[in-house]
């Protein structure tokens, strides 16, 4: 195993982590401010990917598609918030789980109705189609590097938004004391819609960027959603910082596990057997890590406001 391969795998893990962060940040923000568990977050990821693929195909420009994905996911988020989600804030988690589960069914089947069952085509923009040469002579895809960069930029942007702006102040107030922001004269309904739309936009953005790497199809949001849950459980629900740390941890563990566990198994069993057994263990690795972290810290690494 060369060091170039190792570096490349670390970058891959980082890229997965950054992508998970975009999903997890929205989930954890929505939970932190509104106390809502949103299973339909993966559907918004799908909406972003479909919007980007469709608009890119119509206009021939990935960048217009990317902008469209942000707009579409944010608009869809706001619409869903106004029609359904805001009726759920005062309900218990059970009702929230069920209603957003119903939303997944509606989104998936509705998307299939609009776009059909055949996966859509979306490719990386030509500007980012190249490679960078890593130390050691190996090459790394520019687009994936760009995802890492964008993810870090979003993380910094979110931090600035929350710690330095008026909107951020209101969000923080909302996290610590919902009655207080009422007293501050903030229109709480609008604030909630904005926060939900922001989370949706982040998910849609992630969906669009990843859509260029994978296949844009119905149901693509569900595996990501569950990984994002693992991320925020590890990081501490409600904590953006926790989401970042958790996302990168999960990204690295998952990537390195898939890469290394079969090789480790191969040291003491046959290659074929090691390949299947190793893959089986690798697919469970993040859940095992989650269980260990929770056994030590039941509220996650960075317990949030609640």
């Amino acid at each position, binding site marked *: *195993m*060369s060091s*170039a*391969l190792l570096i*490349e*795998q670390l970058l*891959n893990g980082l*890229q*997965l982590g950054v992508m998970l962060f975009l999903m997890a940040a929205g989930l954890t923000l929505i939970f932190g401010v509104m106390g809502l568990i949103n299973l339909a977050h993966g559907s918004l990821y799908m909406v972003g990917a479909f919007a980007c693929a469709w608009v890119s195909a119509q206009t021939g420009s990935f960048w217009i598609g990317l902008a469209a994905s942000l707009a579409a996911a944010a608009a869809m988020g706001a619409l869903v918030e106004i029609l359904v989600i805001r009726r759920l804030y005062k309900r218990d988690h059970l009702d929230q789980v069920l209603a957003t589960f119903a939303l997944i069914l509606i989104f998936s*089947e509705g998307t*299939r109705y609009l776009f059909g*069952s*055949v*996966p*859509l*085509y979306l*490719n*990386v923009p030509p500007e980012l*189609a190249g*490679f960078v040469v890593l130390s050691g002579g*190996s*090459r790394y*895809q520019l*687009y*994936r590097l760009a995802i890492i960069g964008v993810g870090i930029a979003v993380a910094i942007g979110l931090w600035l938004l929350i710690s330095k702006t008026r909107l951020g102040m209101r969000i923080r107030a909302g996290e610590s004391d919902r009655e207080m922001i009422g007293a501050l004269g903030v229109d709480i309904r609008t604030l909630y819609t904005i926060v939900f739309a922001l989370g949706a936009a982040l998910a849609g953005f992630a969906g669009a960027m*990843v859509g*260029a*790497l*994978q*296949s*844009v*199809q*119905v*149901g*693509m949001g569900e*595996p990501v959603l569950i990984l994002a849950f693992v991320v925020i459980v590890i990081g501490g629900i409600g904590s953006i910082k926790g989401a970042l740390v958790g996302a990168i941890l999960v990204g690295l563990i998952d*990537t390195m596990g*898939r*890469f290394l566990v*079969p090789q480790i198994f191969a040291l003491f069993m046959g*290659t*074929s057997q090691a*390949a*299947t057994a*190793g*893959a*089986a263990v*690798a*697919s469970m690795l993040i859940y095992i890590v989650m269980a260990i972290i929770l056994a030590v810290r039941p509220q996650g690494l960075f317990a949030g406001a609640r």
Partner: protein
Amino acid sequence: MKSIVKMGVIGLALSVSDLAMAEPIKIGMITTLSGGGAGLGIDTRDGFMLAIKQAGNDEIEVVTEDDGQRPELAVQIADKMIQSDQVDILTGIVWSNLAMAVVPSATAQGKFYVSTNAAPAALAGANCHPLYFNAAYQNDNLHEAAGEYANGTYEKMFIMAPNYPAGQDSLTGFKRYFEGEVTNEVYTQVGQTDYAAEIAQIRDSGADAVFMFLPGGMGIAFMKQYAQSGVDIPVTGPGFSFSQDVLPAIGEAALGVKNSGQWAPDFDNEASKAFTAAFEEEYGRLPSIYAVQAYDAAQLILSAAAKADVKDQEAFAAALMEADIESPRGDFSFNTNRHPIQDIYMMEVVDKDGVLTNATLEKVFDDHGDAYAEQCTQ
């Protein structure tokens, strides 16, 4: 008259065989019409119905239901078709795991099952059944062909499949014929969407070529990422990942990929040309291999129906076994385990007037059966 027959069926179960010749055949088609895999099921249904329509035989009734690619739903529909609709023959399932759920219990309840696609190894060997016919292939066939093809072309191969039975069978099938060196044998997670880690290993492996079996969305994701990664080791695979339904989503990244299959739209025989033209005229798109297999399944049933009464299962099975059809695939006959003996080819993905499609490259196997036929003693 008809109502008398119906009452007889309900009241006296199978004692109606005297009315044989007037008895229509009822076929239950269970296939995937919703969800991510719906494209395959729709082609299956359309290919099958094309043959029925061409035959103009109104003694044959087909009931179709969507399994949503969920095994438990497929089982429920099968039970309903057997118990309430009283079908004679079941068909249409695309996926091996759904077939495993439905086929053993359907044949145990005395119904024919004619497979249009799924062909798990478990049903081809010791657990084969006299009422189970497969009109498509045996799951391993295309992987074996890819292995055989690699023999003359590559020395070192990187092989990869999802970690589930079809994936394990795939790599086993490949290795059954490939004689060179396997540098890496990698199993990915089912439903995995990001292959960066595997691509990095491919780059590092020093292999001459990659053999990968990643059906559906997994293959699309892999091929796009592979093309973007700039790794220039050629990719080969079974035809599933490069059939007509997925090529548009992969896009140019698929160009030049060599894949194994039993049929491509450019086949130069009369049956194939007629079928392709009829399918395009009826549905306005190119048929996929799934449509061909379903078309042949329907042809097989029709050919048997012309010779025997479906209620006389022994005679009907014997008539099916004759495989008296003109398949678009060319030579077609049944092996002792009621799986096809047919030719397998290598195809290459080409751009034909702006549409990506498969062109025939060379024949790899002539009259190829499968590795499990010997174990089938029923």
